[in-house]
């Protein structure tokens, strides 16, 4: 394992605008100067177990969370707008929602115009470090003088418990191998940045029972390497975040656990204790995030890319007996969606009067307009395969070809409930199909079938 090489680092001058105007590098600055995170980096090259890429919530403040991704032009416009309203804005940061260095073109394309328009602003980025060594020259060329590296483990065995996988050299790699590669990249990048005079901050996420004992070692190592500050952050973990630690019930540290670990860190790197674990689109002072207000301001001719997708999904295995029905309904209230426009189908099991919602099943969009027609057959086949265990598909409308294909597979297409309530359509269709497949059964009266059980 390579340790940080001798960097010949210069001592950082304390009276330096780079520090005094950056809220993350100076607590004093955090009360005076605002920062803005520009969410231009959607892609990531690894999966940390405290992160869930599907999550988005405008009320949530934690790293990696954003409401939408901007392209570089939109980001520059947003920075101009923020400047009008926040005269004390000094720092532009790139912090996600993915890894900035997995999106180098987007990040650097945003830096260029900002640097020429606002030479007194500080540009900074935060990275997992996987692509750091090969990015050091470009980071300096684009005027980025502050880099934060998230370093959670020095022991690859511990790293293997924190990272699910990394994408490296054309492959997804896991376990100790992945953690080892990551660590080498982080340490090589760290040395190179310090040797070139960049202010480096290290973030470590304290995960009780996983890396408590690693953090003092990290503190020692990075202090010797010439890192400016070390930010030990508590793991944020709640089941509704959908992260591995959240879902598996591994809680974050309490205040005493956090203080205990911090007290074991006495290296030269300054301990940062005023971190607010901001979102990747945070704006304003650290203690007063104004992203919800400022990010809502219209960016001219922009289309903010929504990253939120519904996360609920049940694995669907074998066809359960009574009647399983798929419903194309965006709202969930009414049958409001065309078969070909459905991004997902709601799957229900109807047993007599009892209606059970089994979950949503996501499908490729089959009908996407003229230029996509060459792929229609191919995509339709995949959609049909995903609905194979259903006895019927209820939708607002459906084209002739999918109608025929469904019938051939023994799946009943039903479009007679367009704009009717989903529950009513389900009861009605289930009854219809039961009657159809049943060996002589007394006809059920047309009325009298009611809502959900």
């Amino acid at each position, binding site marked *: 394992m390579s340790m940080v090489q001798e960097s010949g680092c210069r001592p950082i001058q304390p009276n330096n605008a780079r520090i005094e105007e950056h809220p993350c590098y100076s607590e004093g600055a955090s009360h005076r100067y605002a920062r803005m995170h520009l969410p231009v980096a959607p892609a990531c090259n690894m999966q940390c177990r405290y992160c869930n890429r599907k999550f988005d919530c405008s009320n949530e403040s934690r790293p990696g969370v954003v409401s939408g991704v901007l392209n570089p032009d939109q980001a520059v416009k947003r920075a101009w707008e923020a400047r009008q309203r926040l005269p004390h804005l000094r720092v532009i940061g790139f912090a996600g929602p993915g890894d900035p260095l997995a999106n180098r073109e987007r990040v650097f394309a945003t830096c260029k115009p900002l640097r020429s328009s606002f030479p007194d602003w500080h540009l900074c980025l935060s990275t997992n470090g996987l692509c750091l060594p090969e990015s050091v020259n470009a980071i300096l060329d684009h005027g980025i003088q502050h880099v934060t590296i998230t370093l959670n483990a020095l022991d690859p065995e511990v790293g293997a418990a924190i990272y*699910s996988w990394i*994408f490296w050299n*054309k492959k997804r790699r896991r376990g100790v191998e992945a953690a080892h590669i990551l660590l080498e990249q982080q340490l090589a990048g760290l040395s190179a940045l310090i040797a070139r005079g960049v202010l480096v901050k290290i973030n470590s996420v304290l995960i009780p029972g996983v890396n408590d004992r690693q953090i003092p070692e990290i503190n020692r190592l990075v202090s010797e390497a010439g890192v400016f500050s070390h930010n030990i952050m508590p793991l944020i973990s709640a089941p509704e975040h959908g992260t591995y630690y959240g879902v598996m019930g591994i809680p974050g540290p309490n205040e005493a656990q956090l203080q205990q670990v911090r007290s074991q860190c006495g290296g030269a790197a300054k301990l940062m204790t005023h971190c607010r674990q901001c979102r990747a689109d945070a704006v304003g002072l650290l203690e007063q995030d104004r992203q919800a207000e400022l990010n809502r301001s219209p960016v001219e001719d922009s289309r903010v*890319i929504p990253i939120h*997708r519904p996360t609920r999904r049940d694995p669907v295995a074998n066809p359960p007996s009574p009647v399983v029905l798929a419903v194309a309904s965006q709202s969930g209230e009414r049958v409001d969606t065309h078969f070909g426009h459905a991004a997902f189908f709601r799957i229900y099991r109807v047993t007599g009067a009892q209606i059970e919602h089994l979950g949503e099943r996501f499908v490729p969009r089959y009908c*996407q307009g003229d230029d996509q027609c060459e792929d229609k057959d191919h995509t339709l086949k995949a959609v049909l395969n995903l609905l194979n265990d259903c006895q019927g598909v209820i939708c607002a409308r459906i084209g002739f070809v999918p109608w025929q294909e469904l019938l051939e597979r023994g799946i009943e297409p039903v479009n007679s409930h367009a704009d009717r309530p989903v529950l009513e359509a389900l009861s009605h269709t289930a009854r219809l199909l039961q009657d159809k497949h049943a060996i002589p059964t007394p006809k059920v009266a047309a009325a009298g079938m009611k809502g959900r059980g």
Partner: protein
Amino acid sequence: MALIITAECIACWACEPICPNAAIRVKNEVFRIDKKSCTRCEGYGDLPQCVEICPVEGAIIDDEGTAMNPPGSLTGIPPREPLPA
């Protein structure tokens, strides 16, 4: 036999730049794999590159509807109980 992107896709763009066949098309932020261009990276890597980098289980399927990254395979979170038969 091209792969297919489902609506589980979160539009994170990770796959688009690494596809060796430039088969990933984006229109209005909907990601799609061009059937004619996709070779499933035959001769390029063990697995298709999009499958190797995609962070979302179930977002890429084959034309049988089988998830290339099935539930639990990327997050380590055990999948929910299968539905009772």
